[in-house]
């Protein structure tokens, strides 16, 4: 199993979610994060004091999927999250040793 973790633009969340549901993903977890990459931040000024804000608001989405589904999921995300402008974000694919569904106690792929 793998965890696919993506950092995307916040207003793309609903589109990505819908695209993933369509290909059979049954759960996901979303975190509000701030990111820093090629995309420049911006300045803020308060009574003459300027701050450079390098971090841009982003959304992190984590989906645990069986190995077989990985390519399809990655490709789906890459399509749904793309605007073609800087700051579109990244997809990270990471190993997942085991999963347990707390309600039923199921483990492994059944628990996804």
């Amino acid at each position, binding site marked *: 199993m793998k965890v696919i973790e993506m950092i995307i633009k916040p*207003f793309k969340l*609903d589109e990505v979610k819908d695209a993933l549901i369509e290909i059979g993903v049954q759960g996901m977890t979303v975190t509000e994060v701030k990111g820093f990459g090629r995309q420049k931040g*911006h*300045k*803020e*000024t*308060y009574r003459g004091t300027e701050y450079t*804000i390098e971090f841009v608001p982003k959304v992190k989405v984590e989906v645990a999927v069986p190995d077989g589904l990985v390519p399809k999921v990655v490709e789906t995300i890459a399509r749904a999250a793309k605007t073609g402008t800087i700051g579109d974000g990244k997809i990270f694919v990471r190993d997942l040793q085991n999963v347990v569904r707390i309600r039923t106690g199921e483990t492994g792929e059944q628990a996804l």
Partner: protein
Amino acid sequence: MTVSRLYRVAILSVFVWALLFAPASGLWAQEAPVAVPPAASAQEVVPAQPVVAAPAATPAPVPPPKVDTGDTAWVLTSSALVLAMTVPGLAIFYGGMVRRKNALNTILQCFVVACLIGVQWVLWGYSLAFGPDKAHLIGGLEWLGLNGVGGDPNADYAATIPHQAFMVFQLMFAVITPALITGAFAERMKFSAFVVFILLWATLIYDPLAHWVWAVGGWMRNLGALDFAGGTVVHISSGVAGLACALVFGKRLGYGTERMSPHNLPLTVIGAGLLWVGWFGFNAGSAVASNALATSAFVVTNTAAAAAALAWMVAEWVYHGRPTALGAASGAVAGLVAITPASGFVGPVSSIWIGVGAGVLCYIAVVMKNRLGYDDALDAFGIHGVGGTWGALATGLFASKAVNSAGADGLFFGNPAQFGIQAVAVLGSWIFAFVGTYLILKVVDMTMGLRVTDDEERAGLDQSQHNEAAYS
């Protein structure tokens, strides 16, 4: 959100209406006259309001103007209350309803309107609106920079308070009116264009309209239209201007697909509370005296707000199964809007009907907006345009000379003509506000552009227009 549910609300409301009307006639008959009987003291007979007394009602012997400390205290207090309606009231009522990234821009727009008009009114606005009449259309420039507007009363407008007190009370009205429009174009207007638009709108739309309705010599006032505290001048004008804005600006990016729920509803409810409290200054202060008429206006203001909030919540309960806090706040404001023109002319039981009508009609208007598809972001038109129109017409239904002998009777009190007069005033205001606003917007759009870029809109106006963040 089926159409059939909408019908249910409409039917329900007609039903409730009918139910209330039956006993109503009886109750109305009992309504105690709150305003002065003919034999009352001279001071109180002075038409309490710059507004729109039927010409014949002007009493013959006016006492020489002298400042009354009680009246002055009430008008100063009212002026402070009406400023509190805009800053911070309306600012946070609107500010809580937008998304987090636009919170400051929305709040700032109201704040800046108070600043711009605060100077504009003193320099030329008051003179255009209330200065010596020119052709029943506009005030002259005689009072530029408040020249001649001093500490002595001006008996034309308020015989017992300093002229400047009347001026500053009216200033607060001139402030809130353009501020109300900002709800329509929230979350997408360039700040520089906003400043220019407000100055133009105040000078070209508000000042003339205030003159027509309230100034000695204004044509709507001469017509005999009743507008105690600004149903046409304030609410129809701003609401209809809002409609024009919504149409010219088009929708916000992501409208209909992204979630655009209010970012901070407690802020909105506080704002609604301040609007409610401040509205006592708005309506009861419009008596420009501290007397029975002011008291009556105070009472019906509260009653209409309460009834309208309840009506909106009931409509929601029927239509989508739950009453909401935003609904209660919106309903109260709708009721306050609707009672505004009527507040010096109707009794407490009438004010319940006016409130119920406002709650239901504005709710329907707001729901319909989603069907019709224009993006009046914070419902400037849905609440102020629709509520103001209902209120101005309802004044023609429910007005009673038993309440204010300087007013007129409405349709339900045997004078159908008044309803016709009100309809003319409504129509005139609609046309003037809509066409005028449309033209101003087009001119500003062509010269400097109205709308922020897509990137700026997505990043939020706080960041793109002000380099600030509301929270951190």
